[in-house]
């Protein structure tokens, strides 16, 4: 698969390290193989040089000539609606979730665990009832092997059918 994200003028990148960590900025110029000039007028990042290994490239790109002034970068940023697009992206949402998870207190973690186990209980109950119903009406194992009492079919070779059913979920 070819590369899709390049270090180029107008590429929006997430600053992964340093004092501006976690903010978006756009590449304005390339200084050399390891450093670029960035500017983030839409995210309060002053114009500065940054090492490329501190940047994570995003899929977004805005158009402006290289070494454009902050005013032009700001205009392009606004027109491309980078801030909205970023906050809608999966990446940003995952970052947000990660942050939230890290900020949980011990009691919050306990509550989350409880809620999860509750949800899983409801889900597995629903699954079992569906499996039971479908094994009885022959939708799961065929009409010949229809289970009468429980949800297990009358299998002579062993419980292979059971395993495949569990895997489906």
């Amino acid at each position, binding site marked *: 698969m070819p590369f899709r994200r390049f270090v180029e003028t107008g590429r929006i990148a997430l600053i992964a390290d340093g004092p501006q960590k976690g903010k978006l900025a756009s590449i304005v110029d390339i200084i050399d193989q390891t450093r670029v000039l960035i500017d983030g007028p839409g995210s309060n990042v002053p114009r500065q040089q940054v090492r490329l290994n501190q940047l994570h490239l995003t899929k977004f790109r805005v158009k402006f000539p290289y070494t454009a002034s902050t005013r032009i970068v700001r205009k392009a940023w606004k027109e491309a609606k980078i801030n909205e697009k970023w906050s809608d992206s999966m990446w940003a949402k995952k970052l947000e979730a990660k942050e939230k998870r*890290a900020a*949980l*207190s*011990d*009691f919050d973690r*306990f509550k989350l665990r*409880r809620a999860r186990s509750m949800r899983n209980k409801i889900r597995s109950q629903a699954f079992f009832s569906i499996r039971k119903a479908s094994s009885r009406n022959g939708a799961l194992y065929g009409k010949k092997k229809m289970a009468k009492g429980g949800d297990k079919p009358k299998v002579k070779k062993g419980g292979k059918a059971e395993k495949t059913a569990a895997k489906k979920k």
Partner: protein
Amino acid sequence: MAPTEPKPATGDKKPDEKKPKIGKPRNYDLGNGIYRFSRTRVYHKKALYKFVGKKVAATKKPVKALTAVKPIGGEKNGEKRVVLLKKRRNYYPTEDKISKRPAKKCFKQHKRSLRTSIKPGTILILLAGPHKGKRVVFLKQLYSGLLLITGPFKINACPLRRISQRYVIGTQTRIDISGVKIPDTIDDTYFRRERKKRAKKEEGDIFSTKKESYKVSDQRKADQKIVDKEIIGAIKKNPERKLLYAYLATMFGLRSSQYPHRMKF
């Protein structure tokens, strides 16, 4: 990371150049022993060329007399005597004075500090002792500096106990126990280990006496009941009482990729 350049150590503070004070040298240290003005500069600034080859007669101060000659009456006394104008000390101690040293700080004089995360009503996670892993309620700090805690006993079987704050993680969760009254009898002496007197020699075999195992006294049981009732009453006032109940009842534990130094409590 790029290596940072070593900064030159800043030396003495520069004297205010706006308000030159009399008696302060105009020359100052720039740091590393280098001075602002060179020797020749100073030579010209001070106009030292004016004084080259000139000799100034040193002013002589009149020397004060240390002794005085006094006439002495009587025939065989030599008529006069040299006397010191300033009297010598009349007492020279033979031993050094015993100076008072500051008294050694006793344990009772130590300052008792409490971690800021721990306040009355905070839920703590115990890290040591037979109840480690339990989540308990912190009641107050005792005179010895130890923390007074309770499970409550009814919820997680942790009785009224003392524990050092070193062996505890303070969580952000708090119960409002401002209205809770703890019996005044519960203090450090309350928790002291009881020492039983040794049986006297004359009575029976030494080997036949058995060690008595620890039994909870009725007093403690009664106190536990009182405190439990108060604390559970405080928990019930909390809007999340049901979850809190379950929270206190469950043990703390770490899952995979959970690091306590990176977690918030």
